[in-house]
C-alpha cells in the first residue's frame, strides 16, 4: 500500500508540475497537429488510402509527439538538482520509475485522445466503430512508448545531446511494438475486428510490454545510481 502511495506521490507531482507550465503538453499537441496537417497535404486522403495508412500515420504522430513529453520526464528534475533529492528519498528506485511512467502515460494519452478526433475530422474517417478494442490497443501501445521512453529518459538525463540520443535509442527498440500497434490500429480504425491473422500482433504488443517493463524494473537502480 505504501509502495502504491509512493508511486502516486511521484506521479501526481509530475502531472501537477506539467499542468502548471504546460510546456511539454503544448509542444506535444502542436507537434501532433502539425504532423496531421502536413500528411494531409502530402497525399489526397482517399478512402482506399486511409484504409491502408491510418494506423501508421496515427502512431507516427503519437510516437513523435510523445517523445517531447517523455524527454521531459527526467529532464524536469535537472534544474536545482532535484534528481538528487528524489534518489536520496527512501523510496525504491522502481517506485520513482513507475511514478514517472504513470505521469508520462497520462500526459501522452491526453495528447493522443485529442489527436484522434482531429484525425477523424481532417481525414474524414469514422474511427469509433471498434472503440473499446481501439482504446485497448492505444493503452498497450502507449505503455510501450512510455516504459521505454522513461527508462531512457533517466539514462540520458545527464549526457550531452540528450534530445538527440533519446529518440535514437528509443525508436529502434520500439519498432516491434510500433509495428504491432500500427497494424492493429489500422484494422480497428477500419471497423474490422482483430482477426486470426492479427491476434499474433496483439500478443506481440502485450509480450513487449511485459518483458520490457520487467527489464526496466530490473535495471532501474543501475540507471539511477550508476
Amino acid at each position: 500500500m505504501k509502495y502504491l502511495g509512493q508511486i502516486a506521490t511521484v506521479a501526481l507531482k509530475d502531472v501537477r508540475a506539467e499542468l502548471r507550465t504546460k510546456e511539454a503538453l503544448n509542444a506535444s499537441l502542436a507537434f501532433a497537429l502539425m504532423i496531421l496537417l502536413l500528411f494531409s497535404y502530402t497525399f489526397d486522403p482517399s478512402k482506399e488510402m486511409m484504409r491502408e495508412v491510418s494506423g501508421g500515420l496515427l502512431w507516427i504522430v503519437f510516437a513523435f509527439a510523445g517523445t517531447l513529453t517523455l524527454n521531459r520526464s527526467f529532464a524536469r528534475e535537472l534544474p536545482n538538482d532535484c534528481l538528487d533529492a528524489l534518489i536520496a528519498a527512501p523510496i525504491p528506485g522502481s517506485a520513482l520509475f513507475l511514478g514517472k511512467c504513470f505521469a508520462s502515460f497520462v500526459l501522452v494519452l491526453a495528447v493522443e485522445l485529442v489527436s484522434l478526433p482531429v484525425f477523424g475530422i481532417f481525414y474524414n474517417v469514422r474511427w469509433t466503430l471498434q472503440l473499446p478494442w481501439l482504446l485497448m490497443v492505444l493503452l498497450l501501445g502507449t505503455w510501450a512508448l512510455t516504459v521505454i521512453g522513461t527508462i531512457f529518459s533517466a539514462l540520458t538525463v545527464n549526457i550531452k545531446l540528450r534530445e538527440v540520443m533519446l529518440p535514437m535509442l528509443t525508436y529502434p527498440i520500439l519498432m516491434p511494438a510500433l509495428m504491432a500497434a500500427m497494424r492493429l490500429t489500422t484494422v480497428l480504425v477500419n471497423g474490422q475486428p482483430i482477426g486470426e491473422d492479427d491476434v499474433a500482433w496483439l500478443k506481440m504488443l502485450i509480450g513487449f510490454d511485459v518483458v520490457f517493463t520487467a527489464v526496466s524494473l530490473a535495471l532501474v537502480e543501475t540507471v539511477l545510481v550508476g
Partner: protein
Amino acid sequence: MSAVAVEGVWKYYGDYPALRDIRLEAAEGTCLALIGRNGAGKTTLLRIVAGFSTAQRGKIRICGKEPRETETRRLMGFIGHGISVYDELSALENLTLFGKLYGLADPKKSAHEWLERTGLERVRNGLVREFSRGMRQRLAVARAFLHEPSVLLLDEPFTALDDRAIAVLQRLLREALAAGKTIVMSTHQLREALELASHVALLNRGQLAFHGERTQEMVDDPGYVYARYGEGG
C-alpha cells in the same frame, strides 16, 4: 558503532583513482569538517557516502547499514550544490511532497513547522520560482531537515548563502548537534565550519592527509591544517 563509517573506499574513473583508500569515521553527535582544495575529492566522497554513486572498492556504513537501503535513506539528510526543490511548486507543496516521500505521519504539519523555523511561513504559498536567492536557500535547508535525519551530509553548505541563511543554518546545525545528530560537512568556508566542527579531515588528491579532533589552533588560524598537513592553501 559510529554514525558514519568510510571503510577503505576507492573510487575510480576508468583506471584513474579519484579516491584512494579512504578510512574515516564520524561518531554520533559529532561534526566532521571535510576540507581540501578543489578537485581533492570532497564532493566525490560525500556523494558516495550519501549513496548517489558507488565506490569500486570499500564500504560505507551509516549507523551500521548500507546507504542505499530504504531505511538508511530515511536517516540521512543531504544538501548539495543545488537547492533540490521544484521551481513550479510552492514552498508548502515542496515540503509536503518530501514529507510524503519520507513517510512522515503528518506531512502538512511538518511542512508548516519547518517553514516556520526557516522564516518562510509567510511565503508558504509562493512559487519557488519567484523566491529570492536567500529564500530558496532557506527552503533547501528546510527540505534537508524536514524528516529529522540522524545524519546530515552537507556539500559546501555555506557557499553562496546570504547572511540570514547562514544564521539560520548555523542555528539549526547547533540544535542538531545538541540533539545528538551527526554532521559531515565539506567546506571552503573554514571559519564557519571550524566553529561548528568537533573533528576535521583533510583530503589531498584523493587521499586522507589528516583526520583528527579540531584544535584551538585550527579555529584561530583556519589555514593551519593546510599548512601543516596539506600542500599549503
